């Protein structure tokens, strides 16, 4: 946190922080190198597939964190933005023949527009109204899509979902036979989302969101309209989530309301951010890296025996995290880093 002010100040305790900063940079670079080399070093398709799922969740949780983590509001309906992005991408490709790359961006814009509809009435209110409204909206949309075969001539296919028409290996159609291209696409998306968050921390919007989270009345006295800036952040977050929904559609070549718009998906994103460390750049990534494999393993090894078991395990981890590490798992990692860096006095 003090990295930001270390530039202009020579106070002794800040030397610790810049040592800490170097350690953190080193760790990020190392993680980046590993991430780049991974599909080359271990090309097993199942392994690469699993890594893509982890990165997708990391990207989605990072998008969730962009508004919720910094403003201290809980969204349990972010899947609706993913759903809009996913459905838009598939439909724009299958109906209009427009490249999914463009479709993802259009999906993101549509998701941002939906977020304004949700956020505009609720951000004026203090209290849990935003959380309640997000879950209500997301469930309304899911139930509507599940029960709608065509809407204004657009085939939504109800509960069955829509498959992406296959055209074979093509960059324009965002379809690849191997897994590796998808891996690098989602890696780039994740890096961009992390950079956006890093930039947010140093921007006016970031300061304003943290002020609103800290104390809404005090924020207002400092020239901040809470509703306005929360809405801006939500729209950016929804855009990012919508683009992620587009990737989801292209990667799985299939969208359906239950998986993509379902409340389980929304809860996953919230839990990963909270357990990893919301309101930090790398917390949601850490949460996704740790939690996604749990879901994959319980699904893969227990199959249909105990559906939803991973949610139970997430719940237990959440309880432990809230009790012992309320700032998320990233917090002890930070203190270890600052202890490792030379002047190990944690200030």
């Amino acid at each position: 946190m003090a990295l930001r002010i270390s530039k202009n100040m020579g106070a002794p305790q800040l030397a610790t922080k810049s040592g800490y900063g170097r350690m953190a940079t080193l760790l990020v670079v190392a993680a980046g190198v590993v991430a780049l080399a991974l599909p080359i070093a271990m090309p097993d398709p199942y392994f690469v597939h699993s890594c893509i799922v982890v990165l997708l969740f990391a990207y989605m949780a990072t998008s969730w964190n962009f508004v919720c983590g910094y403003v201290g509001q809980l969204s349990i309906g972010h899947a609706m933005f993913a759903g809009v992005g996913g459905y838009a991408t598939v439909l724009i490709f299958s109906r209009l023949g427009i490249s999914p790359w463009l479709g993802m961006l259009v999906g993101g814009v549509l998701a941002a527009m939906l977020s304004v509809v949700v956020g505009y009435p609720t951000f004026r209110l203090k209290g849990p109204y935003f959380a309640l409204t997000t879950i209500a909206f997301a469930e309304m949309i899911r139930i509507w899509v599940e029960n709608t075969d065509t809407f204004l001539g657009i085939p939504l296919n109800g509960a069955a979902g829509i498959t992406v028409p296959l055209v074979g290996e093509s960059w324009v159609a965002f379809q690849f036979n191997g897994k590796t291209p998808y891996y690098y696409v989602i890696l780039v998306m994740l890096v961009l989302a992390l950079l956006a968050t890093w930039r947010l921390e140093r921007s006016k919007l970031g300061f304003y969101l943290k002020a609103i989270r800290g104390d809404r009345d005090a924020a207002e006295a400092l020239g901040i309209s809470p509703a306005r800036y929360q809405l801006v952040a939500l729209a950016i977050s929804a855009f990012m989530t919508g683009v992620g929904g587009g990737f989801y559609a292209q990667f799985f070549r299939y969208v359906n309301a239950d998986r993509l718009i379902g409340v389980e998906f929304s809860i996953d994103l919230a839990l990963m951010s909270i357990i990893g460390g919301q309101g930090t750049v790398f917390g949601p990534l850490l949460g996704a890296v740790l939690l996604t494999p749990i879901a994959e393993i319980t699904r893969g090894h227990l199959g249909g025996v105990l559906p939803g078991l991973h949610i139970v395990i997430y719940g237990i981890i959440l309880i432990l995290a809230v009790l012992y590490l309320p700032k998320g798992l990233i917090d002890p990692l930070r203190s270890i880093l600052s202890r490792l860096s030379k002047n190990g006095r944690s200030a």
Partner: protein
Amino acid sequence: MSGDGTPLLQVRGISKRFGGLQAVHDLSFDLRRGEILALLGPNGAGKTTAFNMIAGYFRTDQGRILFEGRDIAGRKPWDICRIGIARTFQLSKPFSDLTVAENLMVGGFVRRSEIDEIRAKALEIADFLGMGHQAATEVQHLTAFDRRKLELGRALSTEPKLLLMDEVVAGATPSEAQEMVELVRRIRDRGVTILIVEHVMKVIMALSERVIVMESGRLIANGKPKDVVRQPEVLKAYFGEGYAARA
């Protein structure tokens, strides 16, 4: 040193009713550029309500509030801040998971857009408060009095023309109160006009050239501190009928 005499803030007949309670009734007063005006009154007199109406936190039922000649009644708190009026809260409300410097940076975005400039300004304010060495400290580790000073500094970070202060020395030790009085004077010397709601008489005597007194939502006195405290209405409001008669 009672300012250059031109009015910065003109309050004209503002009223506020909460259900059956007329919290502020037809209140009018002027605040001159460069002065420190104290707003006094017993508990429940309507001081904080009037304060919140000027700061935009409560809507006025009637009346006008002119700041540099423009009516600002009914404007939102963030607009009031942009116009050049800053406020502190009676219970300090720091952003507790941010550092002192970060707390002082938030308000800077109202006037500037270069983050390095805003940071430099925040550090200058930290020095002004005598908190330069704590710039990198997270606010949750500060003492109650340091938080109070930070509250004041945060208001200053918006570079206001008018500063509204709500009971800045409540709960402070005498030496802390003295430090706060000194700080407020230095703020005024930087060209900021100040309206201060305060209970502690010693602070008011030390600071303000002029005081206004409210009781039951109405203005009952307006003048120099040492004159006002001798007025029978003021004594009655603070100490009751019997005391006023004896005095």
